[in-house]
């Protein structure tokens, strides 16, 4: 038995931990582009802000997209609810609320991450210190994931957190693809162009998939394969198909445990079925941008349906 409020706390704890990590990865990607200067770095930072879903907020306060301003906004601005610092604050606040549902290891890893990141992000981060800070964010969130996966009983508590992680991750991957979809369009695919090659690598890098893509597709960077990899590959842990497999698994376990299936089960099953049966050519035919924006909208709707079906409020 689990309180609706606790299910809500677990779900959002997991979402914000995932968000903190994704944010660090986005900054990492943006930084790399700014360093290699294959394109105007301000454009890249603008698209990073769009991927993070905080571009409007950023532009309310700032008018230049320089590295220092953008990275500090994404890492430590508490007016930005998705900054690493805000995310870890929200994650920890939720973890504290549900701490009786967490193993000691999981709670302590969240609490320690919160202490460590506060220490690091207390002051403005200068560019030379950025790599170390980004590594720390990824390390701390990896430690939380390790403690969580390694010690938590696979029960409803695990499932609500797992769904939070997967919904956040699917949203993140879909946004990254959507912001960059134009470089994946066939019309723009000049084979062998070094500019596009680096753009494609950027997409893969921002979901930590560059090396694994090389394993899978033997270093053949082309838009169709990249879209296939990030949307449909069932073994790639940040792909949309993988995330929905995880969401459906958790929802199935809950349905077994509770003895009934709810509206969110059907919604998630439908989406998974589509991801399982679609071919990447269908997606390009339908329109990559349309596919992705539908996905982002439906993914958010699924989150709301889960909240309603399990009485989060």
């Amino acid at each position: 038995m689990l309180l609706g409020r606790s299910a809500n706390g677990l779900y959002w704890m997991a979402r914000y931990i995932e968000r903190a990590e994704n944010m660090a990865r986005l900054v990492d990607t943006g930084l790399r582009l700014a360093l290699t200067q294959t394109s105007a770095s301000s454009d890249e930072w603008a698209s990073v802000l769009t991927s993070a879903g905080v571009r409007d907020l950023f532009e309310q306060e700032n008018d230049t997209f320089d590295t220092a301003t953008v990275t500090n906004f994404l890492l430590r601005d508490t007016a930005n609810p998705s900054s690493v610092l805000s995310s870890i604050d929200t994650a920890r606040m939720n973890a504290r609320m549900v701490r009786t549902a967490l193993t000691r290891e999981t709670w302590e890893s969240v609490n320690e991450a919160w202490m460590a990141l506060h220490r690091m992000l207390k002051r403005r981060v200068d560019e030379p210190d950025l790599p170390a800070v980004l590594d720390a964010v990824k390390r701390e969130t990896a430690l939380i994931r390790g403690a969580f996966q390694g010690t938590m009983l696979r029960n409803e508590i695990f499932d609500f957190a797992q769904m939070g992680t997967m919904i956040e991750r699917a949203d993140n991957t879909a946004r990254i693809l959507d912001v960059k979809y134009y470089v994946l369009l066939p019309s723009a695919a000049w084979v062998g162009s070094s500019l596009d090659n680096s753009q494609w690598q950027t997409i893969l890098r921002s979901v930590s998939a560059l090396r694994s893509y090389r394993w899978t597709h033997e270093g053949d960077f082309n838009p169709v394969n990249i879209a296939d990899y990030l949307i449909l590959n069932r073994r790639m842990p940040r792909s949309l198909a993988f995330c929905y497999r995880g969401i459906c698994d958790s929802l199935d376990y809950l349905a077994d445990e509770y003895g009934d299936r709810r509206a969110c089960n059907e919604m998630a099953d439908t989406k998974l079925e589509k991801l399982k049966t679609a071919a990447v050519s269908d997606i390009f035919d339908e329109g990559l941008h349309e596919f992705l924006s539908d996905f982002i909208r439906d993914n958010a709707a699924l989150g709301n349906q889960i909240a309603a079906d399990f009485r989060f409020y």
Partner: protein
Amino acid sequence: MTPFDEMRLGGQARNPYEDYQGWFDRQDPKRLKQKADDAERVFRRTGITFAVYGDQEAAERLIPFDIVPRIISGKEWRRLVQGIEQRVQALNAFLDDIYHRQEILRAGRIPKEIISNNEAFLPEMIGVRPPGGVYTHITGVDIVRTGENDFFVLEDNARTPSGVSYMLENRETMMQLFPELFQQVKVLPVENYPQLLRESLTSVKPQQCDGKPAIAVLTPGSFNSAYFEHAFLADQMGVELVEGPDLRVVDGHVAMRTTQGYKRIDVLYRRVDDDYLDPLTFRPDSVLGVPGIMDVYRAGKITIANAPGTGISDDKAIYSYMPEIVEFYTGRKAILPNVPTWRCSEPDSLAYVLEHLEELVVKEVHGSGGYGMLVGPAASKKERAAFARKLRARPKNYIAQPTLSLSTCPIMTGKGLAPRHVDLRPFVLVSDRIRIVPGGLTRVALKKGSLVVNSSQGGGTKDTWVLDD
């Protein structure tokens, strides 16, 4: 006068501290200092913190922990237990009486107006008998010591006493830091407190509840100063930790909103004050409580621990009558004496108090947490004069006590051991029987010479050992 030193007597370790002193003398002081730092890290990592209201800077602070244990012999403890049991029995009998026949008022043993004019007295509880007839399921009895055989009750905490999680975590920390020490000194265990609490709450379930009762801890939320403790106790007992918005009255029962619908609660260990418990009965603006819970309670369908209205028994105005109360209900003199107390409401006492301010501690009748009090000997002439004006203006609001020379126990400082004043709060569970874990929470004033041990005023805590001898 030198205060009673619990560790040493005439340059020698007192009996209960002999084994500890032997161990201590063999330790490298540098290593001990290191251990003290380790302890602080452990507390921070595990998030054992408390919030200080009105302190924006440090929303979460640690209660400083000192690594030198406070040690009580088995013999000393057995005597304390007798006195504590007698006292909580009297407290419960008093509450039952005051909300029913009021025999003690009829007998003229305590004045009527002290009840009728008291905000802590809840008219809503008149004629209500809680399940099992128990009012104070959990009581913290604050005890001070002034000599080898001189123990006094400083105050009773019969509402929602806190601190038990520190008692448990302090022991846990000591056992992690100094495992070898616990092999050399036989200390009675305290870690079964959550199990005892659960048993105790189970045994006072509502009459119509068959089988295992559903128990929950009600917290005001994660911003409350004692939130860590609420979560800790729920966790250790294996029960739900709920907040007001999780609860509602469904079909005449209190129920919590779960992912599978509303589930009934039979026993609620609430850490929310009476005022906030039920917006339909008490403060209408409260969002911390459950609308309608008092109706369910009066219908006997839920146990609330502690019962609403227990505050009348630990009020400082009532405190001065505790010797009479104990004698009235148990037929015997109190085993554990009160600290002598002047009621400033009485003109003779007021005159005495005003004349002797520099030797007395004056407390507000309804205050807690060490705020609004005057420690005469430590106060300046100006502070005493200001306080005297307050006293004259509203004498009824104050009681006064002699400044007790509280016993000391050494703490670890940068320059080695140094004596500091301590008190003791044992936690008493009342239900079908009385359960007390050996020891309690020792609070220690960290400032040299200070007598204020409250954590909100710079106090710390120590592990408290009762020896198995």
